[in-house]
């Protein structure tokens, strides 16, 4: 079978971590921390909350390691936990705190190519980040997972717990909203 040949790089670390090897779990944390924090920050739009939720998600992963099915990708499992915690927190919020959008300008544009890029490209990316920040949580999560984390629609469906067929439609709607926002931003210039 073709599936038998798929390597499972996280499996050894997961098994060692289950037996109580902290360095194995640390290695797992290091491998997913950027994706976990990135998703949390895009959903919550607050550095402090994103750091707190990332910690909580990784701790929950450790506490539930004996329930984790290690034939599934570890990162997708942790991202699903992160997403659920973020949504719980968002539900608890009584109102939208728009003032938190401001720090995003400094936090999010962190692409590796930033030094080589000119000021115009940086500005464009910043305006894209700002436009993205105004979208709904549903739109932001699907765009972040597809374009920023370069996930396939099948992987996104696993994280969001929905049918893979719905992801393309959600992606289309989110992208269209973003495109319209970008167009209205550019129009007065």
């Amino acid at each position: 079978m073709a599936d038998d040949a798929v390597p499972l790089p996280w499996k050894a670390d997961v098994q060692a971590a289950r037996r109580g090897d902290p360095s194995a779990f640390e290695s797992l944390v290091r491998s997913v921390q950027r994706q976990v924090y990135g998703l949390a920050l895009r959903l919550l739009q607050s550095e402090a909350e994103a750091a707190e939720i990332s910690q909580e998600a990784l701790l929950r992963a450790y506490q539930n390691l004996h329930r984790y099915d290690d034939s599934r990708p570890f990162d997708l499992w942790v991202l699903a936990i992160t997403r659920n915690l973020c949504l719980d927190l968002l539900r608890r919020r009584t109102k939208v705190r728009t003032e938190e959008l401001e720090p995003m300008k400094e936090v999010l544009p962190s692409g590796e190519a930033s030094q080589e890029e000119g000021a115009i490209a940086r500005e464009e990316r910043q305006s894209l980040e700002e436009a993205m920040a105004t979208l709904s949580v549903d739109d932001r999560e699907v765009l972040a997972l597809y374009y920023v984390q370069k996930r396939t629609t099948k992987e996104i469906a696993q994280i969001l717990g929905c049918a893979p067929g719905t992801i393309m439609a959600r992606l289309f709607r989110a992208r269209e909203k973003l495109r319209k926002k970008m167009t209205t931003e550019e129009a007065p210039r």
Partner: protein
Amino acid sequence: MSAHLCPDLEVLFAELEEGEGPALDHAAECEACAAVLEDHRLLEKDLYRLADPLPPPTLVASVMARVAAEPVPQRREVWSGLAILMTSLVGGLGYLVLNDQALSRLGTGVASFVVEGRLFAEGVLSGARALWSTEGLAVAAILAFLLVTSLAGLKRLAGSAPTPSEA
């Protein structure tokens, strides 16, 4: 081409993913659709350039500090299993001790098992003796052997079933 004949954007982008289709063919000749596709291409190019921000440098240390205070996951599993077992045992024993009727029913049950167990064993022995005298045992053994080998053969033909996680 006039705008009212232009395809739905969702269809157009779905075909763009697949790389072919009538909507895409239309876009090759329609200026409006070609402009939409170009917009889309530029937006995707910009989106793909975005990257996840770096997490706080203290994140790993903070997580590991909290992990250090937690029990080992495997031991947690054993302890929860033992806790469930002990709870059900204590619950069962407690029910027996606190309820005279249940205790007397348990005694009656044990006594009747001892008495009826002898009768049951005698019945089984006489059945076996009857099978032996009519050579029925040999026939039953051959039939059982045939059944087991056929089932094993069928299982081999069907291949190994996927585990629940693979399914």
